[in-house]
């Protein structure tokens, strides 16, 4: 039994679509999935709040692109491309629960296991609202086409 999809390049959208802009990664993946034919060698995955399961989704790929809501201290709606080495997590974890997730920690474990893709690229989008709600704020939804353009440029 194998994962049903396993292409060399994977684009993963993370986030919770019940918390407004927190779900930006999933909203973007929804749009990218409709363009799957243009990118036959790429897997687009809606991983939601998969947390540690991300480890398996990126394992032994050549490249992983991870799209997530990111608190970066910049203007809401800003998208930034970075790698795991460009940033340091300032997220405080309680270590009480597997329900809290830190993607950077997953990347660290993946590297230690020797199965991390050669290239892991993040696209972080600064949220305007993390309140309960199933829609993006207008600030982010107005920019979704430009976010997709940035990611497609990364895919080449």
């Amino acid at each position: 039994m194998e994962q049903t999809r396993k292409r060399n390049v994977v684009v993963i959208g993370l986030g919770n679509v019940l918390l407004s802009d927190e779900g930006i990664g999933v909203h973007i993946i929804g749009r990218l999935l409709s363009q799957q034919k243009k990118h036959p060698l790429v897997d687009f995955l809606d991983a939601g709040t998969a947390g540690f399961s991300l480890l398996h989704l990126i394992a032994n790929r050549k490249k992983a692109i991870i799209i997530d809501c990111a608190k970066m201290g910049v203007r809401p709606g800003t998208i930034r491309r970075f790698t795991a080495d460009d940033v340091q997590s300032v997220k405080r974890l309680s270590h009480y629960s597997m329900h809290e997730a830190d993607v950077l920690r997953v990347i660290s474990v993946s590297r230690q296991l020797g199965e991390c893709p050669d290239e892991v690229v993040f696209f972080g989008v600064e949220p305007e609202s993390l309140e309960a709600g199933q829609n993006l704020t207008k600030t982010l939804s107005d920019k979704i086409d430009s976010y997709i353009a940035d990611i497609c440029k990364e895919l080449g």
Partner: protein
Amino acid sequence: MNNNIDINVHHITRVEGHGNIVVNVTEGRIEKLQWQVPEAPRFFEAMVRGHNYQDIQLIVSRICGICSITHSLAAIKAVESALGLKVSEQADKIRILMHYSEQLQSQTLHVGYLAAPDFFDAPSVVPLVARAADIVKTIVKVHRIANAWSDLIAGRTTHPVTIVPGGLTRVPTEKQLRQLQQTLKDTIPDLKKIAEAVLSVAGNIPKFERPTEYVSLKQTSPPTYTFYHGGITSTDSKGAVVPIEKWHDVANEYIVEQSTAKWAKWHRDTYAVGALARFNNNAELLGPMAKDAAKTFGLQKGCCNPYMNTIAQLVECFHVVETSIAIIDQLLTKGLKDEKATSAPRAGKGAGCVEAPRGILFHEYEFDKKGNCVAADMCIPTNQNHANIQKDFEKLLPEILGQGQNDIRLKLEMLVRAYDPCISCSAHFLDVKFVR
């Protein structure tokens, strides 16, 4: 004896709170000892109100990234109860297979990534990879198999898409089920290896006991170690089984000053849910390998050491694997049918209940005649455990006051971790500063 202790493990995220442990001991006198759980206001009801019955399970699957199949199944059972929908035997079995995949995912995740670092005296799983690479790789392997299993049956590893009112959108092929069955058979030696590794450090599991009430599902017809069917029972209810529709009589929620999350009680001031509760109510119904695993760890029905919940989870890993092998046999013997789920809206109210990996979960919905949701309620296992954690603290601390502050803190933290709580589930965003 420590005369003065000051522990304040305070974690606040921007979206919702973690649990905080607060201990103040002055001149040997315990002045404050609290398990505090700040929780954001519940938005669950508003989230689903107005949505059609066909969409409920998809929405609630997003509540949690670890228990997404469980939330979907609790919701679909409630929806089907409200609308009077029947599910075929085949769909029922496939849903149970799906549910078991999540049990294995979650229990492996908890035992391997959260509890194991305590047992092996590592601060987290990250340094544990270097210290015990072989066993971590085995845990990762089993977790990966469980994820692929969910992917196959639920259509996605997390947030399932194949569950619909009245059944499923698709049925796995015979070839896929045979492959899955073989994979599960091949996983058994890996589970044994994990159990052996945990057994080798089982001396690090604190020896602490506090009798309490253990609440879980119980299925009597046919008798089954259940995660999905049956009614509600407890170690205090003398064999009585309460129908799911009466779940409000069980989970009596109440408000306390120290926590914005509600607490729950039934026959006593507190009760516990989770793997140990299921074990204490149903242990005789476990599969043979699971029984052997329990015996190896000396885990017996009536155990009231909350730290042993992690061991009960490990025991359940064996159970879901061996039971799934048998379920696949039953499905293949009967022959797979191409079924189409059908449903129609009607006004009604229904409750659904399943066992999440971390304990019993209740959902309830009411629909108007167009099938739109007009009311919803939910009670998650972690909230049912909060009061019990507090009572455990109150018995444990006087017993360990003679130990150093760091040991006391570790034992309290390990206790919380043993309950495998679902807190801060929805806050997954990156929080970073740029360093180059």
